[in-house]
């Protein structure tokens, strides 16, 4: 866990640097080495690590728009994930997906950038496991802002009535972009919604990694043993803006301070020290994580960009042949030019 958490934190610090390069002094979203939006998860690490610690490669995870800490904890290939984020040919998706669309079938990891829409596919993975009589489980991660979305609520019911091996993990960081939780729902403890579907619900009121780990152990265990789904909410923190470039004008200074004050990584380090892990050992974990990250980023940056023709591939696994579209070249854009 500690390893995953420091890896995720350092990884995103490095991504942030890279992302901002070429976007200074004026922030231009389409400049610099990393394309598109970037949602960083500093303050969320305990949830990804604490939950995924119980998962095997054949367990499925779906993540939302803020996926890195979860992907790392699930064991997604760090180099190919980084290459994907940099939009390179050897990326997980050959540069077609990007940071919100990380897919790694080797560890059954997938994303959707649409709020709550990772839930139904996770339920489907649980359904497949049940049908095939394996003890694999599926976990859907989402933010607290996503719990008002129909796709999530419907998924609770479907998972419950079918008694599927699914865990829904709500990362409650108090904010959905600029909207504080209390502005969009009256419910303080999102896991209460489980009751209305006769499902087990539980909330961890802070992000002490060990407590998250234990709650997740119960939830994943329940799923693996055929005892049905769980809705698990975890209080996490949002140490940064919603996405890179978010000036957070809407957010009180104190709130940022409060979120930064309690750092789950430091707390876990303290816990570990109490259990006899030495500072040297912790440093070693951290350094080796940093090396791995640096290496992945260096590697990714050396990778070639995809050839423009690759844009036409992979629409279908089983592509149709023929048709005038194939011959047509009028759509082959080279450059927008005016921006």
């Amino acid at each position, binding site marked *: 866990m500690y390893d995953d958490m420091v890896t995720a934190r350092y990884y995103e610090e490095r991504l942030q640097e890279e992302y901002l390069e070429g976007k200074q002094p004026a922030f231009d979203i389409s400049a610099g080495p990393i394309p598109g939006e970037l949602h960083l998860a500093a303050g969320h690490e305990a949830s990804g690590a604490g939950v995924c610690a119980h998962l095997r490669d054949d367990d499925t995870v*779906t993540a939302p728009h803020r996926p890195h800490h979860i992907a790392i904890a699930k064991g997604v290939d760090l180099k190919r994930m980084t290459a994907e984020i940099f939009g390179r040919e050897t990326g997980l998706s050959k540069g077609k997906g990007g940071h919100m669309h990380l897919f790694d079938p080797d560890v059954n990891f997938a994303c959707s950038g649409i709020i709550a829409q990772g839930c139904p596919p996770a339920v489907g993975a649980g359904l497949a496991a049940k049908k095939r009589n394996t003890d694999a489980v599926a976990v859907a991660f989402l933010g607290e802002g996503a719990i008002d979305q129909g796709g999530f609520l419907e998924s609770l019911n479907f998972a419950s009535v079918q008694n599927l091996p699914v865990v829904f993990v709500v990362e409650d960081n108090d904010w959905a972009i600029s909207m504080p939780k209390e502005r969009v729902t009256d419910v303080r403890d999102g896991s209460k919604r489980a009751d209305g579907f006769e499902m087990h619900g539980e909330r961890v009121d802070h992000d002490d990694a060990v407590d998250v780990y234990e709650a997740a152990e119960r939830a994943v265990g329940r799923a693996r043993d055929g005892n049905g789904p769980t809705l698990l909410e975890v209080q996490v923190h949002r140490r940064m803006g919603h996405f890179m470039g978010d000036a957070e004008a809407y957010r009180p200074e104190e709130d940022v301070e409060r979120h930064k004050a309690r750092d789950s990584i430091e707390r876990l380090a303290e816990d570990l020290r109490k259990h006899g892990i030495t500072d040297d050992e912790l440093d070693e974990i951290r350094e080796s994580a940093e090396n791995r990250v640096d290496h992945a980023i260096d590697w990714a940056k050396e990778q070639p960009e995809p050839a423009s023709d690759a844009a036409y591939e992979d629409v*279908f696994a089983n592509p149709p042949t023929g048709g005038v579209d194939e011959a047509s070249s009028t759509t082959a854009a080279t450059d927008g030019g005016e921006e």
Partner: protein
Amino acid sequence: MAQTQEAAERELTMSRAMVEAVAQEMREDDDVFLMGEDVADYGGIFSSATDLGEEFGHDRVMDVPISETSYIGAGVGAAQAGMRPIVELMFVDFFGVAMDQIYNNMAKNTYMSGGSVNVPMVLTTAVGGTYNDAAQHSQTLYGTFAHLPGMKVVVPSTAYDAKGLMHTAIRDDDPVVYMFHKRLMGLGWMPSPSGPKTDVPEDAYEIPFGEADVKREGSDVTVVTLGLHVHRAMAAADALADDGIDTEVLDLRTLVPLDTDAVLDSVRKTGRLVVVDEDYRSFGVTSEIAALAAEHALDDLEAVQRVAIPDVPIPYARPLEDEVIPGVDDIEAAVRAVRE
């Protein structure tokens, strides 16, 4: 001998043919399963699953809550996990409650993953009007689905095609939207025209996607259409033949992939094109076919007309619905018009 003959000449309704393909694939492959509303005991409101629940049980022919986002999305997840779900959206008109799963996940995950995952799923759905079910239960929405990339779109017009296209759909490694027209299913309570009931081989067979079917050869005018309107076009062609007008009728059968060659070859031959569709006229199927002809066969093209729903929601009362859904007369009139 008698048996062979029977097999060869066995006539099925479109519903029976479609269900037979599903049953055969389910017998072959444990990964194939079916879910939808009212499929288990009812057998599908439009008989798209008749008797399947009995043969395969409720685990493989699953009734689901009325929550299309969750169960269609569950189909996507199960497909990505390697199963081959067939998922039914009861009426295509309900797509709006679940479109995100359909077009942003089912249709795009293959591409967004650079091909590292794929989604071998069939989304079946009932389409079409002609029985006065009004604006929220009578649409075909062919163009809506065909416009968005990443899903194959299949529209059978006969029992023979329904079975073959269903086998292909289930075996295909990509998401396939299989749109069956209610009026063609051969339901006891909604009489079909005579065309869709055809001989159907008992053994499994595939009909490749992207191959239009020339239902009738002709030299004067090309009519390109699909679904129910194949039969209306054939009726129009018969009537026109009496006046010495020789109409070629093309059944597209699949919209994605689209058999552009067949369309263009026919247009180059006849020079006159009528496109007939039961979807809304603008920004849809008729637009696409007419545009293709203009882009690629302009020199041969002497006239084009589109016959489709005139960009109004589908009204309830009979005279109103009859007005907006293209009839045999309308096709005839359009064919005559492009010859002038």
